């Protein structure tokens, strides 16, 4: 296999890792006000703060490591396909700026939320503001990554010097917006499934109940996005991966509805991975098609680094990727236990953990 193919595949793998992992922690962030509402809950929001802590702590040990997949995807693109990195990052300037701002406030929010004033109205305001940061900081990138990838696959105006010649409105076309809604919806579902799998008590039951309501709209959006993608850019082989994505998503939803949380999470994870595979498969051998003139498209050949750089980086990746996968997997194993209200706030009354899945969630 050519080294450019290896690196195209590796970058697809890095984005897959990023979306599968950070996808659920984006989802958890978006669901913060939904699954632990301060108002309108059956208990009047009395446990809202504890439930939010349950949710945030469920991703606490891993979100930062998940985000590194993005940094490595960026760095690997810089090293292996400098032209791609340069055209993409300068061309998608404003959306990336928004993503950066979102990731900054979100990261700080996780770390600072619990370190503010201990009690009183000041403490409440402190947590409320950081909760907003978590929500918007998760929602914005979950949406914009979909917009970005839809545009990459669809193609954008690029001139002979590999410079992007469009503007922000070029990027906000209907297909890209559909892509954004799809990633936002799928990541939210993925987050709900993750919470059902990783927590116990109210948060778990509410996440399950939400699953029933989210299932149909998410499935419709994802199916529409995959279908449009395949109609405009599809290839025979990627129809297979798109079908895998659709089946995995539906299977995941079905498993979730039956309370098989492990299988549900596997389903949404496979669906995200198969979708990334579909997008990259449609892209190949381009990395950024030009809508101005196909001759101006960036391809795995004209955007790539020298064979020597690719060879060096291949060795580095071959040696170190398994090590990273090993210790990240081990982290998930260490923190495999379900989180409950009692675990994060021992003062909380005991019931809830084993309660019937209907009572509060069915409100």
């Amino acid at each position, binding site marked *: 296999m050519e080294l450019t193919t290896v690196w195209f595949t590796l970058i697809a793998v890095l984005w897959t890792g990023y979306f599968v992992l950070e996808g659920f922690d984006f989802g958890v962030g978006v669901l913060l006000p939904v699954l632990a509402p301060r108002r309108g809950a059956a208990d009047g929001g009395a446990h809202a703060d504890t439930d939010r802590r349950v949710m*945030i*702590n469920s991703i*606490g*040990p891993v*979100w*930062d*490591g998940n*985000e*590194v997949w*993005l*940094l*490595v995807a*960026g*760095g*690997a693109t*810089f*090293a*292996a*396909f*400098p*032209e791609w*990195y*340069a055209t993409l*990052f*300068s061309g998608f*300037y*404003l959306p*990336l*700026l928004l993503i*950066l*701002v979102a*990731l*900054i*406030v979100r*990261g*700080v929010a*996780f*770390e*600072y*939320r*619990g*370190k*503010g004033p201990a009690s009183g109205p000041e403490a409440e305001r402190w947590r409320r503001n950081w909760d907003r940061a978590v929500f918007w900081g998760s929602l914005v990138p979950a949406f914009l990554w979909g917009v970005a990838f839809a545009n990459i696959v669809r193609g954008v105006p690029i001139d002979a010097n590999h*410079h992007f010649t469009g503007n922000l409105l070029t990027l906000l076309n209907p297909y890209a917006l559909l892509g954004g809604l799809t990633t936002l919806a799928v990541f939210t579902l993925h987050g709900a499934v993750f919470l059902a799998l990783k927590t116990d008590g109210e948060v778990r039951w509410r996440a399950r109940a939400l699953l029933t309501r989210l299932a149909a709209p998410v499935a419709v959006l994802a199916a529409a996005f995959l279908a449009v993608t395949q109609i405009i850019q599809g290839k025979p082989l990627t129809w297979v991966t798109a079908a895998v994505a659709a089946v995995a998503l539906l299977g995941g939803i079905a498993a979730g509805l039956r309370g098989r949380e492990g299988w549900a999470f596997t389903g949404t994870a496979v669906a995200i991975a198969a979708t990334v595979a579909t997008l990259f498969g449609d892209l190949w051998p381009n990395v950024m098609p030009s809508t101005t003139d196909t001759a101006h498209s960036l391809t795995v050949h004209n955007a790539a*680094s*020298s064979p*020597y*750089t690719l060879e*060096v*980086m291949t060795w*580095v*990746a071959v040696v170190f990727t398994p090590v*990273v996968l090993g*210790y*990240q997997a081990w*982290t998930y194993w*260490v*923190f495999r236990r379900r989180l409950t209200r009692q675990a*994060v706030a*021992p003062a909380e009354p005991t019931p809830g953990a084993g309660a019937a899945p209907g009572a509060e969630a069915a409100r």
Partner: protein
Amino acid sequence: MNALDLSRWQFGITTVYHFIFVPLTIGLSALVAGMQTAWHRTKNPLYLRMTRFFGKLFLINFAMGVVTGIVQEFQFGMNWSDYSRFVGDVFGAPLAMEGLLAFFLESTFLGLWIFGWDRLPPRLHLATIWLASIGTMLSAYFILAANSWMQHPVGYRIDPETGRAELTSIWQVLTNSTALVTFPHVIFAALLTGGLFVAGVGAWHLARRREVPLFRRATRAGLVVSLVAAIGVTVSGDLQARVMTEQQPMKMAAAEALYETSAPASFSLFTIGSLDGGEELWSLRVPHVLSFMATGEPDGTVEGVNDVQRAYEQRYGPGSYTPVVPVTYWTFRLMIGFGFLAGLLAVAGLWLTRRGRLPSGPWFHRAALAGIALPFLGNTMGWIFTEMGRQPWVVMGLMRTRDGVSPDVSTGEVVASLTVFTVLYAVLAVVAVALMARHARKGPPPQDQAPAADEPVPAFSY
């Protein structure tokens, strides 16, 4: 101002800001790991409380370093796309290695450390903070190797067809002499930052006679680390000056505002006059020192700005090859000055607290608290010096800064991003400093909060 100037300001602001937090992360992670090791060895609960107290301050700082670092990774492509196209083949490799080898290590093991107090066996838990600390240092190594390539390009060739730099030896890039002297300089500066931070926070509590046994030990440990680090910074800085004289004579000449080649060359501590070199009204000079710094010989010849400018014009064509001399002159002096004061503070502090003593007057405590700022100021000056001193080049001798900017990013877009980053960073600075001060004042967790064996509560969960 055009997109180029604005992009330069943005890169300067975001990078200097990022590097406020990074040295403290590197220095403090090692110190906290040391404290936890002391607890592991002695089982003295005092060290556990010390670890948790400084660990919390470390995490407040770490978060800022992480999130501002994401911007750095994106910014090359966003604002410097022509630079990225030109150097990607060489420069991208250490950046990608940083992500794969360092970022994963520090983020994953720090997550394990924060949340793993009650889930991991103590020895393994101790290993997680050391691995995170090693990750921060590895990260520094790779990014400094990348930066050193901009200061002194090695292990590359220019592709005659595309005109781009291509990697010919990754080994040369990773063992660049510039990187080998810069890395210890930065790591020692980071340890100095962490050391004086611990000492300053400790002194604040000692002044109030709170938790004296704990903070006495912490302060002394911080001061010892600071002293060793200050010596390390000086020695590595000296080596660096010689490498710099050889590889970037213009930067050395601009550091001293030395216009005419001199032998022996004196070092001016302070100058009043016009710093573009025209007139000097008064200056305080130490003879032979510049010669010694630059060459290692008291009578060595140091090239002046004018001669280097003439040589570069012949080599690279007409144009100005002189950086902004007042900036290089003053940042160089201030860097050394702040570092020197930091070292002095460490010596004074160790002397005043020797053999169980505690200074009774308020002055040492005030100085130690204010002294926290010294390494931060020195770090900032050092980076401004080394980056401004390289101008007009972005890659020394190969590409000018003005040729590296993104041609397809409009002035309006850079105005937007510069405004957003500046405002956001200012707000976050206020929040982070206030939070840090609050937790620093609060002091360590009370003794009896040691977790019960049957129901351990993770101390650091969000």
